[in-house]
């Protein structure tokens, strides 16, 4: 299947059917909306379902097909958007009370590109508040449940998007990934989730959590569908100063033209150390499958600097977040709780509007930046970042892609880690390094753990290495054990 005609997926199939007139976009979207209405009650993936707007958009797609115009590569494909992506006139809450009723007056760049590609937004998905969390239990509107087991978390912070795809409501969703927030929920829910090279997809309109780490990325049921979505929305944006100057990597073509022959692959010790044994087994199996498919499997390599990555991340990300979230002050939009003066009003608003995890990270971040502590915390963390980047650079002199676990465990029970922030933070240990380095990474479902819950295998590549990364991901997908085994 790899090295062949690019692979398949439900999004590709829908787009093809709509573009050729075989199916109407309206019919596709109606099916999706019905599935959501019928099934989301027990999962809670969606915060807002945009039924009317979606049907109108579907009709527009059908009209352009009829008129002979190009309806776009994602024509008629229903897409769910994480609720931190601005959608003009449609509630964008970040799963927070402080934005519970906020309707942005503008669209995020990726939303505009999705529409231009003919995709139909069917709703906004639940998340950990302001993207802070690894379980979607930090939502102000209630948790999302893992479609594979309702007593388990879907992961976070893009838990709603991952669940929406895993439950079959939509073939495609967008999430955001700052420390693993697309990849980890993808692994826990058994879907594909990918984070691009930093700057590969515009952040304009993504409500910021940690600006130097945040990236938007696709969630899908297949690698090929994820590649399709990545190409449709990626590329330079003049509204985002940190967006790369070039267009998205031509990954669909790479998938069509190449398998993994000759690609050098190695497992990273630090991404399997401390990981549950059943998860590590799946990583090893994936490595074996790659070798069988023609990749050059090298010995396990160690990148010791990655060990410091988690601590550095938990200083950098909250620091940037503490600044990014200062704007929620009750002045111009969102929640306001009145007070006798502006300071009291700011305080009352933020105290009522933010949940505990957000408050924790704001305080941690404020502390890391405060006078006298900057060098010891933020300054140090930035230097650790340099160490991680340089260490990866040395590794990529010998390999093309790296392998590891995405999450150290399968989906944990709802409530299991909610009172232990440190335990929650440790879920990110395998994913954070790619954010620190600005490198692309993808999680591919690969069988289940001993508890029958999904396991994701992570493929990491160097900056701008999406083509190699997707090729390896496709090969792993092709070799994945059948569902349930």
């Amino acid at each position, binding site marked *: 299947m790899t090295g062949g005609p690019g692979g398949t997926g439900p999004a590709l199939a829908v787009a093809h059917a709509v573009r050729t007139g075989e199916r109407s976009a309206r019919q596709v979207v109606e099916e999706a909306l019905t599935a959501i209405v019928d099934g989301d009650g027990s999962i809670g993936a969606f915060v807002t379902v945009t039924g009317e707007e979606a049907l109108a958009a579907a009709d527009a797609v059908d009209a352009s097909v009829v008129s002979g115009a190009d309806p776009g590569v994602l024509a008629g494909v229903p897409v769910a958007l994480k609720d931190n992506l601005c959608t003009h006139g449609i509630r964008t809450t970040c799963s927070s009370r402080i934005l519970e009723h906020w309707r942005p007056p503008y669209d995020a760049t990726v939303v505009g590109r999705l529409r231009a590609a003919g995709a139909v937004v069917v709703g906004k998905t639940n998340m950990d508040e302001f993207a802070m969390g690894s379980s979607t239990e930090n939502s102000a509107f209630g948790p999302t449940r893992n479609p594979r087991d309702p007593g388990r978390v879907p992961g976070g912070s893009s838990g709603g998007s991952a669940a929406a795809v895993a439950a079959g409501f939509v073939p495609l969703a967008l999430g955001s990934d700052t420390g693993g927030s697309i990849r980890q929920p993808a692994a826990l829910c058994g879907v594909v989730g990918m984070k691009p090279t930093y700057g590969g997809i515009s952040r304009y309109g993504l409500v910021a959590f940690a600006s130097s780490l945040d990236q938007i990325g696709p969630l899908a049921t297949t690698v090929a569908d994820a590649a399709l979505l990545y190409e449709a929305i990626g590329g330079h944006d003049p509204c985002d100063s940190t967006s790369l100057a070039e267009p998205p990597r031509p990954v669909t073509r790479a998938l069509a033209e190449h398998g993994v022959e000759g690609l050098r692959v190695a497992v990273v010790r630090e991404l399997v150390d401390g990981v549950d044994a059943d998860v590590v087994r799946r990583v090893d199996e994936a490595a074996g499958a790659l070798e069988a498919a023609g990749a050059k499997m090298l010995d396990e390599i160690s990148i010791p600097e990655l060990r410091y990555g988690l601590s550095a991340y938990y*200083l950098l990300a909250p620091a940037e977040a503490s600044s990014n979230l200062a704007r929620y002050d009750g002045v111009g939009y969102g929640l306001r709780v009145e007070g006798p003066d502006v300071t009291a009003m700011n305080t*009352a608003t933020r105290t009522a509007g933010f949940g505990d995890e957000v408050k924790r990270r704001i305080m941690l971040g404020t502390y890391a930046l405060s006078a006298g502590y900057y060098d010891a915390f933020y300054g140090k963390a930035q230097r650790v970042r340099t160490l991680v980047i340089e260490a990866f650079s040395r590794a990529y002199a010998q390999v093309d892609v790296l392998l590891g676990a995405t999450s150290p465990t399968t989906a944990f029970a709802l409530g299991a880690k909610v009172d232990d922030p440190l335990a929650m933070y440790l879920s990110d240990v395998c994913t954070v390094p790619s954010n620190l380095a600005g490198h692309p990474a993808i999680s591919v479902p690969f069988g289940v753990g001993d508890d029958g819950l999904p396991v994701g295998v992570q493929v990491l590549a160097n900056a701008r290495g999406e083509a190699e990364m997707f090729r390896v991901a496709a090969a792993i997908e092709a070799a994945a054990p059948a569902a349930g085994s």
Partner: protein
Amino acid sequence: MRAGTDPPGDPVALGRAEVAHVAKLARLALTEDELDRFTGQLATVLAHGADVAALDLEGVAPTAHPLPVHNVVRPDEPRPGLDRAEVLAAAPDVEDHRFRVPRIGGDAP
């Protein structure tokens, strides 16, 4: 950035006073109970980071941006903005086409 500033005491020993101070800086009001709980949780997180705090990274340059990009600018040309009515409609309190806020206590710091 702050050459030669000595942190007052061990930076990793985060106590109630420090948490109360940053809460105030961040415009967050904590109950006594929350202050205790958060102090414990934050101290645990920071203690976990002690390995980083202990590293000697004198010769290592800090990274502000993961990928080296420079000189991203735009031309000095007007672009369409937002409709005032739509923006003010989302505001908690408006008077005379402006955002209304309660009494401001002092000048900007």
